[in-house]
């Protein structure tokens, strides 16, 4: 559970721009957040909101010619990861920051057995011998709940099911005992029962190992089940950030409120139409000078078209929102 005042990861004003043939796409626009040791931060947003790009920018996983992490600071372990050398980044990736990707079916190399892929970071970052790495690999597979671990080390990825492959990915990400684990929609490609298993597994591992976790998802149900704090992203910006309970009890941003309304209710009469948020998320060809959500917002007024709202605190619970509208007064918030 969250403890310690000093954040283990502190991101300030991160900006990432993609250079494309049609112009520059501003995928991440001044995103700031921090992560405390042992805490699980959920990141929610539609496809195209910039969630994955933000996280991949942290450790430089975006291909550099089109992508450019152009501004801000990524403070981790005494380094600014944005300006750190390739060598420093490589030492941190896999060892201090673990990353889990979305599609377990394609994230593992098909021609090497699972043991090889698991032992790679162990031998490189922790300097273990082959036998030592193999023992640790067996421990890791057992930790993530794969039965018959020692003989499974010799198996290839195609001999595992989707859920098992994701467990292997988790084992790889945790191999060198990282301080931070970034999980980019790890259960989106899996069926619901396996999803529940993986979520339980990650919660267990957090209890045991105490690392901080960033969990990206577009599923609010998952957030409710696992997150300590939640960050809602839209148009490459953080539009709302709050402790999980607080967000569900008292959503401030029109986007968050609309998102919560889109979840169909299990109890009660079935509604004839699903609630949707009309429109498409924007592709920003310039840094936003107005609110990116105003075209789809139920409460937009004139100011939303001329200024980009900055994050302001709401209440006393570490809740902030980037919006000119005030949910309590149902009108414009005081400047």
């Amino acid at each position, binding site marked *: 559970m969250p403890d310690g005042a000093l954040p283990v990861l502190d991101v300030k004003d991160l900006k990432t721009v993609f250079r494309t043939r049609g112009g520059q796409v501003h995928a991440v626009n001044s995103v700031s957040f921090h992560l405390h040791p042992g805490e699980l931060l959920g990141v929610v947003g539609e496809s195209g909101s910039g969630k994955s790009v933000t996280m991949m920018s942290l450790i430089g996983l975006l291909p550099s010619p089109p992508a450019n992490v152009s501004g801000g600071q990524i403070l981790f372990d005494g380094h600014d990861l944005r300006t750190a050398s390739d060598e420093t980044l490589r*030492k941190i990736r896999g060892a201090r920051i673990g990353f889990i990707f979305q599609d377990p079916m394609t994230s*593992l190399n098909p021609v090497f057995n699972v043991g090889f892929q698991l032992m790679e*970071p162990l031998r490189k970052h922790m300097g273990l011998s082959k036998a030592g790495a193999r023992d640790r690999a067996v421990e890791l597979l057992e930790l993530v709940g794969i039965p018959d671990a020692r003989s499974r080390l010799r198996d290839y990825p195609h001999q595992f099911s989707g859920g098992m492959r994701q467990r292997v990915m988790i084992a790889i990400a945790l191999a060198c005992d990282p301080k931070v684990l970034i999980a980019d929609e790890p259960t989106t490609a899996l069926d619901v029962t396996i999803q529940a298993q993986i979520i339980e597994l990650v919660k267990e591992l957090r209890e045991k190992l105490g690392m901080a976790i960033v969990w990206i998802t577009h599923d609010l149900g998952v957030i409710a089940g696992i997150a300590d704090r939640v960050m809602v992203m839209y148009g490459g910006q953080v539009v709302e950030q709050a402790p999980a309970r607080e967000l569900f009890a008292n959503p401030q941003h029109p986007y968050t409120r609309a998102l919560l309304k889109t979840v169909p209710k299990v109890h009660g009469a079935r509604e004839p139409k699903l609630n949707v948020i009309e429109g498409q998320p924007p592709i920003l060809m310039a840094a936003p000078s107005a609110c990116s959500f105003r075209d789809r917002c139920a409460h937009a007024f004139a100011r939303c078209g001329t200024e980009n709202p900055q994050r302001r605190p709401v209440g006393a619970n570490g809740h902030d929102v980037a919006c000119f509208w005030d949910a309590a007064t149902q009108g414009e918030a005081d400047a």
Partner: protein
Amino acid sequence: MLNYTIRRLVLAVPTLLFISLIIFSLLKLAPGNPLGDLPLTIPPEVREKMREALGVNKPLLVQYLLWLKEFFVVEPLHLIDVIFGTHYSAGMQRIISWQTRSPVFDIIAQRIPQTLWVVGLAYVVGVLIALPIGILSAYKQYSVFDQTGTFAAMLGLAVPPFFSGVLMILIFSVYLNWFPAIYNTNLNVDSWHNFWLQIRQMVMPVLVLAIQTTSQISRYLRSSMLDNLSQDYVRTARAKGMSESRVVLIHVLRNSMIPVITVIALGVPSVFGGAIVTEQIFLVNGIGQLLITAIYANDLPMVQTITFIFAVLIVLFNLVADLLYGVLDPRIRYD
């Protein structure tokens, strides 16, 4: 895998028999005069007796069956005799060339080393040069290196050996006088000086042949690498903190080489066939040149035997390519 191999080998036998029948029929249908190269002073009755002795006038089926027996029974026995000093084939009729009236396999055994030296080495050199070119072209796609490589490969594939060979002779032998234009077939490599001479006379034919192989293999490898460089597992490898050289040369290359190795394996028989033109230009006394002269002389047993050997090599290397694919790609299992 063993089952599969045995099954393929067993199926290869009727295939090869059928091929040999086709070759034989085609050659018999072609017009020609088997002993036409003999001086005109030989009286026609003697000529006729010679033709009888060589079996030219026997019925087609008998000629074919005799050849089959000689190829599959007598020659192997003779080989065993040569190796082990036994006398199993003493007194048996071997395949006799109509040109030289001496056993075909003796001549082939004399010529094979030349071909292997020049053509075999060319293939190895071609493949070794193609590997770094293919890898670098894919890694730095659209760079100057890649564009040059693409253009060079296109030229290499488009320009036939009889043109490039003659061009090289013109430049390197006639103008620059760096290398000999005529292959000295009597060169006995028994001293360092002679070894160096042998190397010098092999350079041009090896280069001419290697150009074709390099162009083809480097394109294949480039295309295969490009496919693999954008795969998810590459991103996972980078996220584990692996060095870029390890990611490209171990993770990506291992996957990319699978189709390329099968192309290389399939190209080996063509090493022998493709040498035909090059051996003519550089006057290397190898198998290709033997085949050409035998065709001109209507030497049926020689042509039959050599083309059948090519057929055996092609069928064999097809099988090798399939087996290699199964060995290298763990997802493919034949049983």
